[in-house]
């Protein structure tokens, strides 16, 4: 071929250097984007309330548990934390219990209105929550589940469900039907084939989508703020006290909110990779 193509294929030393520079800068910027705010959060959480409220800021944490102790002692905050955990756990369980069978049905059975059903699932995310909040609140009051963790978990389940259904749908679709059929011919019924063949294969993905549901609920603030009064979750509680609470409480609260989400994602990173592995196969 001609010299021109060779040039394109093998970039000159300068171009390669420049490319490398852009790549490294990009990586550094992205890391900074995520890590710097987290670092500030960490510093301020692990500093005494006085340091948090004073200027200039230090870049090294003091390892003073004053802010956290204050946070723990703040009236109602532990109940709010407990509520957050309960609501998130309920959301996690409900979205998997409802979402996984729906995902399975979507991937394995042909039925009338299947496309419409898929669209409807996505549509639940089409209405902004503020729009739904008022009718929901009215309905909750009528049915008597207003201001309960269960009521809030129901709303969070609605939010997490589309993801649960779609993730499990793609998981189940990634598993060839022949594996199940082979199990059927080897003495399984539908249920045991599911237990022995499908479940072990999708478990990593299910775990990941469960944790995803947990994090969605954990981070959700709007519905929590509108639908609960006494039984506030941590996000709603912090939001409610945003203007009145001191700076160090906000930092400590933010830290407590961010950490579980981070830990969970970190813990399931292996499963997330496994999930992508299944999807790729």
């Amino acid at each position: 071929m001609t010299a021109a193509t060779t040039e394109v294929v093998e970039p000159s030393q300068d171009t390669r250097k420049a490319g490398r520079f852009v790549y490294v800068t990009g990586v550094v910027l992205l890391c900074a984007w995520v890590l710097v705010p987290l670092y500030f959060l960490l510093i301020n959480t692990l500093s005494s309330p006085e340091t948090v409220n004073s200027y200039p800021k230090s870049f090294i944490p003091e390892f003073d548990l004053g802010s956290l102790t204050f946070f723990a002692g703040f009236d109602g905050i532990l109940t709010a934390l407990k509520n957050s955990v309960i609501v998130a756990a309920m959301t996690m369980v409900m979205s998997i219990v409802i979402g996984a069978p729906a995902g399975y049905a979507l991937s394995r059975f042909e039925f009338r209105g299947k496309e419409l059903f898929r669209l409807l699932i996505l549509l639940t995310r089409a209405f902004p929550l503020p729009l739904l909040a008022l009718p929901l609140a009215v309905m909750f009051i009528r049915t008597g589940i207003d201001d309960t963790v269960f009521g809030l978990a129901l709303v969070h389940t609605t939010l997490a469900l589309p993801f649960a259904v779609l993730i499990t749908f793609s998981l189940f679709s990634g598993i060839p039907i022949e594996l199940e059929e082979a199990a059927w011919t080897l003495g399984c019924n539908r249920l045991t084939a599911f237990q022995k063949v499908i479940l072990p294969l999708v478990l990593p993905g299910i775990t990941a989508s469960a944790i995803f549901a947990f994090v969605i609920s954990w981070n959700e603030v709007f519905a929590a703020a509108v639908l609960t009064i006494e039984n506030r979750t941590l996000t709603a509680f912090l939001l409610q006290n945003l203007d009145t609470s001191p700076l160090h409480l906000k930092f400590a609260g933010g830290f407590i909110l961010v950490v579980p989400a981070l830990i969970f994602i970190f813990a399931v990173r292996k499963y997330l990779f496994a999930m992508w592995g299944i999807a790729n196969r």
Partner: protein
Amino acid sequence: MAVIEIKNVAKRFGEYQALHDINLTIADQEFMVLLGASGCGKSTLLRIICGLETASEGEIWIDGKRVDHLAPKDRGISMVFQNYAVFPHLTVFENIGFGLRMQKLPNDEVKRRVERTAGLMHIEQLLSRYSGELSGGQRQRVAVARALAMEPDVILMDEPLSNLDALLRMEMRAELKGVLAESNTTAIYVTHDQVEAMSMADRISVMHEGKIVQAASPIEVYRNPAAKFVAGFIGNPPMNFLEASPQGGGKFSVAGHSFDGPSAANSNLQFAIRPEDMTLAENGFPAVAKVVEPLGAHLLVTCELDGKLFRAILDSEMQVKPGETLKLSPVQDRIRWFDPETTLAVA
């Protein structure tokens, strides 16, 4: 005792009719081979027999009992899938032992059977591997071993050896045949490979476009094809066809020569002859050699005869060069006749 009776089975996928009125009885302990081109409905028929697909019409009987309504696990059938379906989360050992564990057999029995079938399939050294760590041919043998370990009355195999190299395939073929005969299993075996079909089958069912065209012993299918499709499908290369017009009195004119044909027929027929049933003779058809392919013991000569391609297999001692005109004469009692209207054989 496991006789399989397939009665009037038809299968439609929406508009598309994959199987038309299939009738077939497979005797106890028979080794039946299903042979047919890709897409003719072989896998669909197997899936209906083992209950993974429901027939649109017709009935399946096994051992004198109607099984249409039974779940796959209750039919006493093992299946080897065309795409293996080896469980990826289990080791080869657990794959082969899967069905045995479902039957809650004791551990030592499972171990014994797994090791025996793995040995038959030459995969005993792979027992601790996962399917991701196996080659296609190894996976295929795991699938076969898994079905054999069940010691079923009926085994259905969908191209179980298609991914093995020629030598291993020949070896496995013999092993498989031996094991099945020993265990008194009734087998239905799908293959594209005619040599495999010929060498293993008690009977061959030739399928074409969702119909069974002929079900007979390998020699019968080869020597007396029931339809033009079978004649043109079986044999490598398959039969040659020439146009034949009636001359009265049971005589037919084929490419300027006169032959004794079916005496009852009085319309145009097709004359068919296998390439190896041609000899060189002075009064033969004049044929111009186009391509000459030495096959070792034989010589495959593709010639032009009566304006059509015509193949003959001659002894490799012959010195044939392209462009040469040969005098080819058919062996009289090997000539077959087909009706171009019905495509069926005429005697």
